[in-house]
């Protein structure tokens, strides 16, 4: 049995075993989530996403290392890292290689790294990644860095989970049309152009900045067009509020050499402060918890239905559907 107190007191083996129980959906895992839930809500969840090979793991390594050194006189934050890599759709196996780039962090007891296979989830995270953050948050980690599967254009689950999303780009991955497509760029709170020592990095940064300017115009991300036209009539107070809207910074970094990391951390802190000052922190949490709750209800309803359904009746209805005597939509009405 896994001991919640041990986890709260920093027992790393208990924590690790709890994560396994959660990942495998064992009853012990559900109990531990329930027990730790009252202790959650304190950690800053920072997502790191981007295409394969842009340097996400290297960046996470540098971020964790620098965060641990930062802030003189203050206790450095306890950091947990969740690194998600894809599960093979053919064999169900996975090669989890993100630790290779995180060797600098070995030996630091203030850092806990867990690799996670996506296990069939398609949004860039695993189904249980959110549950992992509950455990790690409850265990007392101040900062949780979540590295997604190498993501392209549609893997945007991280935006719903993390408070702050860093999208990592690298030079040479596509023209400026890529930058105005929907998807991953839209979820960025901070855009990091990695490999700034390579040719084309400045151009990539410029293209991203142009994209952002186009998206926001002279206006701010939350304001609709009609509001902009009317903005001259607004009261000063409203003006001030609008001026505070977050505009994602575009930042050149060279993760392998640690260049630009301190500035990136400043932006992460700024974004956190922004969320807290504007009340968006609470709003995001509320939104996420609502979604989690809805998902759990859905799951549990399905399980309930599966437990109650008369298999013979189901087969009988299915047979009618297979023989095109009954449309599936009507069949659902018979079976629910």
């Amino acid at each position, binding site marked *: 049995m896994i001991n919640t107190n041990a986890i709260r007191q920093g027992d*790393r*083996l208990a924590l*690790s*075993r709890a*994560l*396994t129980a959660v990942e*495998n*959906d*064992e009853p012990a895992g559900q109990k531990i989530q329930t027990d730790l839930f009252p202790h959650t809500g304190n950690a800053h969840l920072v997502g790191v996403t981007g295409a394969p090979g842009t340097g996400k793991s290297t960046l996470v390594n540098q971020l964790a290392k620098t965060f641990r050194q930062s802030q003189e006189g203050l206790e450095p934050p306890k950091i947990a890292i969740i690194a998600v890599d894809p*599960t*093979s759709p053919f*064999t*169900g*196996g*996975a*090669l*989890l*290689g993100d*630790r*290779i780039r995180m*060797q600098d962090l*070995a*030996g630091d007891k203030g850092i*806990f*790294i*867990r*690799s996670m*296979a996506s*296990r069939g989830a398609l949004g860039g995270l695993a189904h249980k990644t959110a549950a992992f953050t509950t455990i790690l948050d409850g265990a007392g980690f101040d900062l949780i860095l979540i590295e997604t599967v190498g993501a392209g254009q549609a893997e945007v689950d991280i935006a719903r989970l993390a408070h702050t999303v860093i999208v990592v780009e690298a030079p040479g991955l596509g023209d400026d049309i890529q930058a105005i497509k929907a998807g991953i760029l839209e979820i960025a709170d901070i855009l990091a152009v990695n490999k700034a020592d390579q040719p084309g990095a400045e151009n990539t940064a410029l293209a991203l900045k142009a994209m952002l300017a186009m998206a926001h115009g002279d206006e701010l991300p939350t304001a609709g067009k009609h509001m902009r036209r009317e903005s001259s009539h607004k009261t000063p107070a409203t003006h001030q509020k609008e001026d505070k809207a977050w505009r994602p910074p575009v930042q050149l970094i060279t993760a392998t050499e640690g260049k630009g990391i301190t500035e990136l951390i400043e932006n992460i802190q700024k974004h956190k402060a922004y969320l807290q000052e504007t009340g968006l922190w609470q709003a995001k949490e509320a939104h996420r918890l609502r979604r989690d709750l809805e998902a759990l209800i859905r799951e549990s309803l399905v399980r309930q239905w599966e437990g109650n359904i008369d298999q013979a009746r189901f087969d009988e209805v299915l047979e009618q559907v297979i023989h095109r005597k009954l449309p599936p939509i009507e069949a659902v009405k018979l079976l629910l």
Partner: protein
Amino acid sequence: MTDRKIRVLIAKPGLDGHDRGAKVIARALRDAGMEVIYTGLRQTPQMIAEAALQEDVDIVGLSILSGAHNALVPTVLNHLRENGLDDVKVFVGGIVPEDDIPELLEKGVHAVYGPGTDTQKVVEDIQKAIQGQNE
């Protein structure tokens, strides 16, 4: 419903500088449906034991080509025990002289594989070891 995947840590302790064998075996285990955590070259025994703890693996596979197995393997085993990972099974692959194998097995290594071992055999041995544990 539980869906317990076999989790394996493949690690290279010590200073030997190539990891072809480790990558081949990592790939084979992946293809057998396991979740393989690969940590890269030049790991200390402490780093390996810590990674095994954080990743909660069932199996640790050590690849050693340098000849330092008699020193490195027992140290890894000790650190694993210190971390409370007594139930983790340790497999060793690489270049280990026949004469050294009995001592490694006696110290708690589950199996030792030399060059040219069929990866399928390693897969089956791991599956057997885990089944034995669960029964």
